[in-house]
């Protein structure tokens, strides 16, 4: 939200919290956010000990983040263009 939308911290935290249905306080609490990240497919620590192959990660996670937060993510848009027949770049 800061990097591409230029949002200041308070505004950015509130925006993300509203989209996720939590409070800004919750955003930096792993005890809350671990489950939310898993439920929404936001990715997480990629480890054989704690990650599972059914969970979204990496570029998959960014698709979910873009959709839930309702913000365009450049590489996600590029991915769609390059994997959509007739959209060019192939």
């Amino acid at each position, binding site marked *: 939200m800061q*990097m591409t*939308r230029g949002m200041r911290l308070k505004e950015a935290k509130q925006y993300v919290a509203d989209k996720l249905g939590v409070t*800004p*306080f919750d955003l930096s609490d792993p005890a809350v956010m671990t489950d939310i990240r898993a439920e929404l497919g936001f990715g997480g620590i990629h480890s054989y000990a704690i990650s599972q192959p059914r969970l979204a990660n*990496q*570029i998959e996670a*960014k698709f979910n983040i873009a959709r839930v937060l309702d913000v*365009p993510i*450049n590489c996600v848009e*590029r991915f769609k263009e390059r994997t959509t027949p007739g959209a060019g770049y192939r």
Partner: protein
Amino acid sequence: MTNEARVPTRMGDGTFTRMTRSEIRADLVAGSEAAAKRAKVPPLSDEELDHLLDIYASPARFTGVDVGDEIVLSCDGTGMKTHATRIQDLQSYEQWMGADLLELCVGDYSLKVVRTILAYEAQYMHDAQLCTIAPLQYGVMPNLGLYSKPDGPCENWNELLPLGKTAESRAAQEEAVEMAVVDMVKLADSQWEAGADAIDWDTTGASGDPEFLAALRATAIIREKYPDFGVQLGMAGEFVLGMHGELEWEGVRLAGLWPKDQLLLAQKAGATMFGPVVNVNTGKSLAWNIARAIAVIKPCMDVATIPVHPNAGMGVGAVPMFVHPLADAVCRSAKSFVDLLHVDGL
């Protein structure tokens, strides 16, 4: 002699010293007054100085912000073959160090070097975006000096100036600005196509006002071409050196600008994040340095419409000029910026 207890604290070069609470407060006041005198900013209030005193007179090894006051940490150079391939480095920073953002770059980090390998860097960004989650930017330092001889095509303005050839020196700098703007936009073009989230102009203004001008002009062009592309503009020093002296952008003379006026131009150009810098005085205590840094940057916070991430690393933002970041100094600097300025990040 005083029987007041002494606590360990550091000097700007990183060495430990022991000071009483009274001595630390005296240094805080002196640092604040030094900022007011030099940068023409208001000094810190007694309440602000007392809060800094509590942070810097604490004997604790580590301190931190209050729960709920966490900020975003930006950075440069997380993907540069520190310990593995560049992509593996990015993944390590994201997965094991919890980095809030990542940056792909080359070791040299200079714009003029990167312009010769744009296609390779874009392909690497493309690959990296597929296997990371955190926002990933591409970083360079404009380093305008490389555009002058013997490294570049322009006459060397640093050699012309001592000869009294002011007009020739200025002409060479203006020529370099034109080249740098073209290169910066070409870099942005290629990185946007590759899927980058942002471009980072790091240590902007290291070559003075012509370099700051190039960054502002390029940022404005990029904002026009790519409305959703992030541009992080971080400064090299606390005020813009007047290597040229007469350059203006949007009617504002660039030489001699302090952080607040730098920020106003950066956000007008279309930057999405701004990184002000206050250099460390290695002969003064960290208390002196943090008070000066906070006072110099404070005016930014009232006028900022974009996130402000003060630079807090080696030799800037009251972090000692020492190659390994000293944790007790870094955490005190961070807490001070968060508690007093409510910065958007560091």
